[in-house]
């Protein structure tokens, strides 16, 4: 039985999460999460390891379907519609770009890495693909470094380049939502700053959820930030307020000031 399509009261909410709980093999990993992400916002999520940040992202694009033992309860609505009512989860995932913590250059050529998404959607014409590949590589600040060797293997690029390749691949999906999971773990600081500039520009076209273990990165980019701690959402606050001592919960203040975690 499919859940009927629900029109959202506030149409510009890209992601609406109500009372979300996630279990792995019955063990609770995240519970009682209710939050809304407006369209065209960079939404930060911070918190120490094992706080449920990655699980939260996995619930949004229905990666629970391919994770053994992962159960999701509560509701996650993307563009006003419950993700579990999508009868074709592949179509949902195509609308959501994901960047994982460690870069994943697929063992295909650089060109094929970026063209993969379009090819999955049956774009075949070389000219069309060329346009997509160049546009996405340019936006991921990688084009100048690889334009002369698009045929070489994506998995042989350096870590920072591979992460930009991964971002280019996510952009090639032309997503309405971009999920970034600690993208800068494997990237040098200079590259990280370049990618952050790209993200700030992308905000006008898509909604970005930025999970990061660098609280300063959240501060630089996110307009609002959620603090997750040991499987619970502590609070969602305007980022500037959170860093200026305006957090609602003393644990948040302690975390952003580097007192634990």
């Amino acid at each position, binding site marked *: 039985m499919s859940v009927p399509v629900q029109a959202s009261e506030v149409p510009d909410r890209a992601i609406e999460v109500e009372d979300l709980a996630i279990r792995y093999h019955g063990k609770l990993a995240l519970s009682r999460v209710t939050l809304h992400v407006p369209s065209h916002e960079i939404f930060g999520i911070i918190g120490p390891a094992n706080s449920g940040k990655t699980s939260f992202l996995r619930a949004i694009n229905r990666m629970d379907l391919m994770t053994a033992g992962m159960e999701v309860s509560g509701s996650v609505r993307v563009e006003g519609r419950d993700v579990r009512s999508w009868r074709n989860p592949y179509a949902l*995932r*195509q609308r959501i*770009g994901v960047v994982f913590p460690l870069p994943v250059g697929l063992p295909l050529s650089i060109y094929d890495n970026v063209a993969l998404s379009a*090819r999955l959607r049956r774009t075949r014409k070389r000219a069309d693909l060329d346009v997509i590949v160049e546009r996405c590589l340019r936006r991921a600040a990688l084009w100048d470094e690889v334009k002369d060797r698009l045929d070489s293997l994506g998995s042989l690029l350096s870590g920072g380049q591979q992460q930009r390749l991964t971002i280019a691949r996510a952009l090639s999906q032309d997503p309405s939502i971009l999920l970034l999971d600690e993208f800068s773990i494997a990237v040098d600081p200079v590259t990280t700053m370049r990618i952050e500039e790209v993200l700030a520009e992308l905000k006008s076209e898509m909604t970005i959820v930025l999970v990061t273990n660098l609280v300063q990165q959240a501060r630089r980019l996110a307009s609002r930030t959620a603090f997750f701690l040991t499987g619970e959402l502590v609070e969602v606050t305007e980022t500037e307020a959170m860093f200026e001592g305006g957090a609602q919960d003393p644990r948040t203040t302690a975390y952003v000031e580097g007192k634990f975690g």
Partner: protein
Amino acid sequence: MPEVAHAADRRDAAWWVDRAVRILVLAGGLSAIVFIAGIFVFITREGAGFVFDRFDFREFFGSPRWTPTSSHNPTYGALALIAGTASVTGLAMVVSVPFSLGAAIYIGEFATGRVRETLKVLVELLAAIPSVVWGFIGLSIMNPLIIQVFNVPVGLNVLNAGVILGLMAAPIMTTIAEDALKAVPDTYREAAEAMGATRWQVTFKVVLPAARNGLVAATLLGVGRGFGETMAVLMASGHSINLPTSPFDSVRALTATIAAELGETAAGSDHYGALFTLGIFLFLVTFAINFAADVFVRGGQRKHRRRGRRPAASANP
């Protein structure tokens, strides 16, 4: 000070154990080389007399007449035997490649949990069935079946031996192919799936290209297995000298010829030497096949050599 110097020079039990283990494992490793070299030296020496005195390149590779027991004019043309082995092995690959690739893809990419574990155990069990049992199946089940279905006089032929050999090689090929698929990191699958690729798209567009070298190696090892197999082929192929023109012709394989005839020859005779020459030929071909498989596997490793390497974590900018 003298005590310190003493401690730096004293070789304790751990040092001696380490030294002893090093020598033992070195001996183990070298033994593989010694045995393979020993086998090669042995068959070459036994075959050398024939190769230098009687061997005729054009006859050996060009004539289908293998009549070593003829009293007035023995001939040693191995062409029919080579064709027999090649035709049976070729058909076996046609049978086993789709089966084993399909099974490997199912086990590696689609099956989960119990089904997957059960299938893996079953496939490994299948690989352990002795070849004489396969030969027996060829004789007693395939033979009447082929006669009945295709209405031919004899059911022991290329078709029979090829199918039997294909089924026989499939389990080991499945296991190796599945290993090759398993060597593809899960992060590739997850990344492609997160983009909205279906399971089949992930398999076809990402996993199979990444595992290509390993899959080729699995196939080549299957070819090597088919080439060297003796008993099942001897029993199922009909064992009669023929240049096959259809799958229903009986043939005789190189290996089966050696197995059947070696016991009947006088050591040192031309016939004896000719059989060893067939052995040298087999040895060289299987060596070449295994070498090629190895090159492919190594090519695969080189291609992915960076995949496991984590770039250094950056400091908090």
